[in-house]
């Protein structure tokens, strides 16, 4: 689904002394089937931005177009359910949203709300639980008897069960162990490709952003600061540092390497594999 954000502004607690402008003049086009990484310092407005994408927050000014649905400041009340079915959000710390007696019922909550039949929802639950790497036996357990990481997976399964067209992920792997992190990210990426999703990933990890994203958008103090392809963004080290961020560690390593060795390796290695490859080539060249 194509997403188009125009001059979006959001103020929390409008009209009170606690009023706070969290977003200002954000313009962002996300083409269909794009994997967009949204990065930015803490408090820069990432979560605020993504909550506009399925109408959980209303714009104070500007508009958002999600496929055929238009959400704009001062717009009429509309039924947001169809949009919410298509745009699934995995919130920051989603394990806090679990409430049912069993994991199965909790996963079925979303699909049932969106009108799926009981049996179909059950089937979906047993599908997605495998997807997130948990055994079928978990389905009959209480979600509150699980470990934090398992609860996280169940919560993610609850959103995947809605089979959304747009997947919005707010730091889905924060606080998970390293292998869990990779597993979950790989799962999202696989789904993104297989189901031709449009994915918005909020992350603090430059490594994830560079590894999975087609495009990167950088937020800074409530404004869209940079937007482009990963190699474009990661060439702007000064600007990134200005926004309280930095380039991925692989690029930092290459910068140091070039400085110490006097070589001039290309800085476009964003993953460990790419880095190893480019170093290998450089060393081979020196050897011969």
């Amino acid at each position, binding site marked *: 689904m194509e997403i188009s954000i125009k001059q979006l502004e959001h103020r929390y607690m409008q009209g*009170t002394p606690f009023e706070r402008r969290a977003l200002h003049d954000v313009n962002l086009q996300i083409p269909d089937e794009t994997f967009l990484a949204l990065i930015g310092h803490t408090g820069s407005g990432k979560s605020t931005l993504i909550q506009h994408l399925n109408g959980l927050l209303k714009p104070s000014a500007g508009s958002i177009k999600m496929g055929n649905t238009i959400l704009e400041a001062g717009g009429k009340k509309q039924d947001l*359910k169809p949009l919410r079915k298509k745009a699934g959000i995995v919130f920051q710390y*989603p394990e806090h*949203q679990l409430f*049912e007696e069993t994991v199965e019922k909790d996963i079925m*909550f*979303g699909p049932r709300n969106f009108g799926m039949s009981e049996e179909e929802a059950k089937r979906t639950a047993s599908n997605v639980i495998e997807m997130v790497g948990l055994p079928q036996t978990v389905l009959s357990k209480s979600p509150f008897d699980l470990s934090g990481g398992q609860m996280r997976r169940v919560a993610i399964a609850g959103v995947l069960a809605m089979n959304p067209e747009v997947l919005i992920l707010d730091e889905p792997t924060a606080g998970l162990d390293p292998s869990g992190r990779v597993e979950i990210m790989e799962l999202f990426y696989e789904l993104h490709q297989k189901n031709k999703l449009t994915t918005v990933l909020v992350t603090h990890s430059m490594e994830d952003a560079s590894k999975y994203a087609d495009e990167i958008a950088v937020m800074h103090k409530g404004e869209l600061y940079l937007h482009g392809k990963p190699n474009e963004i990661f060439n702007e080290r000064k600007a990134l540092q200005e926004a309280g961020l930095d380039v991925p560690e692989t690029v930092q390593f290459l910068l140091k390497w070039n400085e110490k060795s006097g070589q001039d390796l290309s800085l476009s290695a964003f993953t460990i594999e790419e880095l190893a490859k480019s170093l290998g080539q450089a060393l081979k060249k020196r050897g011969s």
Partner: protein
Amino acid sequence: MLQNVIIGQYYPASSPLHRMDSRSKLIAAFFYLFIVFLANNWITYGLLIAFTAVTISASKVPLRYLYKGLKPILILVVFTMLLHIFLTKEGDVLYKAGWFEIYEGGIIQGIFIAMRLLLLVLMTSLLTLTTTPIDITDGLEHLLGPLKKWKLPVHEFALMMSISLRFIPTLLQETEKIMKAQMARGADFTSGPIKERAKAFVPLLVPLFVSSFKRAEELALAMEARGYRGGEGRTRLRALQWHSRDTFALVLLISLTLSLFLLRS
């Protein structure tokens, strides 16, 4: 969503009212609760209104903000007013249509009662708007201190109160967060028949309770880890200080009371 509940919410500003000692404000508010009932004619109500208006302007809390907090209570005020207008049968008949009659006394009663309610709510919200929750409980603990002699757990009550006050905003935030998360999963809190809507709150309340219990446990643990063991011999970082302005405020209130006694009919 939950942004217009101001009870228990402090409005940060620097005003004479903000700078007053919380004890004098508590005494004044408590006192005020009683003297409102002294007013029974136009002059005394006028006096009370004038006093309240001066207090509000001295607090530097914007009227718009105050009004927002009052809104939920306005319905109650209007309802009581109408009840009095329709049910009081005193004075001249002003309007008559069949069995339906409105008396002059009813109108006056209605206005007075509405005013009384409004004044009460205004003054008590001013107290919480200009005093931080911590100051309020500190003040209460001080004022109720003598009751400790009778083995009343004043300190514990004060602590419980300050903890609950402290966590109201947190709880509201948490509620909003979970509401959003469930709405994203298709939950609907705002429409549908009553029975359905009541059911819709289960997905909200369960996580809220779970996290509250968890938080309470963590808080207790953190307090114990830092050596908390009750009010005995505990000193304060910020001691309350009684200034001449506090005495002045109470004197003002006493003069108001005397005038009310003199002018009431």
